[in-house]
């Protein structure tokens, strides 16, 4: 297992089967298919699962986005058409329209942070992949007002390739992920200081305005928890092509 900063985020396969009420073989199959991400103990080879990911498995849209962001997947299937936004304007328009569905459920202040976070993530999807989409352009987006989760994902080039444009010695997805959340950096380095969006979301989670952020790019997975200033970054077995963000509010 690579270095885990907070083992409380992880569950053994036994605990995971109890949480989801499925068999161990079902869990292993989902892991092998890339539907969930796991890490392994390098000494005994045992798998461990992230609790946040296991809880997300209860939602159909989470399984769909995990499948869709797997490397090698090259088509837009009918089953994701309700979550697919091919151009930025279609996605940002949808996000602004979501406000009405949140009113009465969440405070106006909370809504402003959710909308802002969604717009920052949406902007990143299109801004950082412009002119370099590897296969399918566009974003996967869903906001579930009942479960209070928002998912935004893309099949773009991912943080590592983008940030290497301005920092050539970046060695891994995990390094790129940490950099994106901690330093002021943007793939468009020549345009001056930018790259505030992910820091905004980090700040909003740290201050407790959002419950949690899970962000994966390549094989690097980050988790930020409310009222906790740590970044929990690990390398997982299942890769994501591009970026996958899950915000809980």
């Amino acid at each position: 297992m690579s270095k885990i900063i907070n083992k409380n985020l992880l569950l053994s396969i036994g605990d995971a089967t109890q949480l989801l009420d499925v068999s161990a073989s079902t869990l292993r199959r989902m892991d092998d298919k890339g539907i969930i991400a796991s890490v392994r103990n390098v000494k005994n080879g045992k798998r461990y699962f992230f609790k946040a990911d296991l809880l997300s498995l209860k939602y159909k849209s989470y399984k769909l986005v995990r499948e869709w962001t797997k490397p090698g997947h090259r088509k837009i299937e009918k089953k994701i058409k309700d979550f697919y936004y091919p151009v930025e304007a279609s996605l940002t328009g949808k996000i602004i329209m979501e406000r009405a569905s949140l009113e009465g459920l969440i405070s106006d202040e909370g809504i402003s942070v959710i909308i802002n976070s969604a717009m920052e993530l949406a902007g990143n999807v299109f801004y950082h992949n412009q002119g370099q989409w590897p296969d399918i352009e566009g974003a996967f987006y869903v906001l579930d007002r009942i479960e209070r989760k928002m998912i935004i994902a893309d099949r773009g080039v991912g943080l590592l390739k983008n940030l290497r444009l301005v920092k050539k010695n970046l060695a891994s997805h995990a390094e790129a992920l940490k950099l994106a959340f901690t330093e002021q950096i943007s793939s468009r380095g020549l345009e001056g200081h930018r790259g505030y969006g992910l820091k905004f979301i980090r700040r909003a989670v740290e201050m407790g305005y959002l419950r949690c952020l899970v962000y994966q790019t390549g094989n690097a997975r980050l988790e930020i928890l409310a009222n906790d200033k740590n970044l929990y970054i690990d390398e997982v077995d299942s890769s994501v092509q591009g970026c996958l963000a899950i915000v809980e509010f």
Partner: protein
Amino acid sequence: MIIEFIKFGEDLHGRPQGKDAYDSIIARLGDIRSDEEIIVDFKGLKSCSTSWLDEVLTPLQNRFGDRLVLRNVTNLSAKLSLDVLRDVGGKKFRTE
């Protein structure tokens, strides 16, 4: 001179949109007196991103310095965005 951000929309996002807003503002500031304050009013905004604010406020501050004053920064996303611009970008703006 008072610039009401609400005139640009209730939700202010995106660098290109911020650049457009700045161009629109600067076109109206041609006759401003050399000692006049430029008051930017956030009243009525529903959400406001770091990138939009960066594109508007940073060049205004570069041009007018301490004559730029922010008013009614009560929206939470606007407040957090200004905090990030200050803490990450080192950009601090004068508020009323």
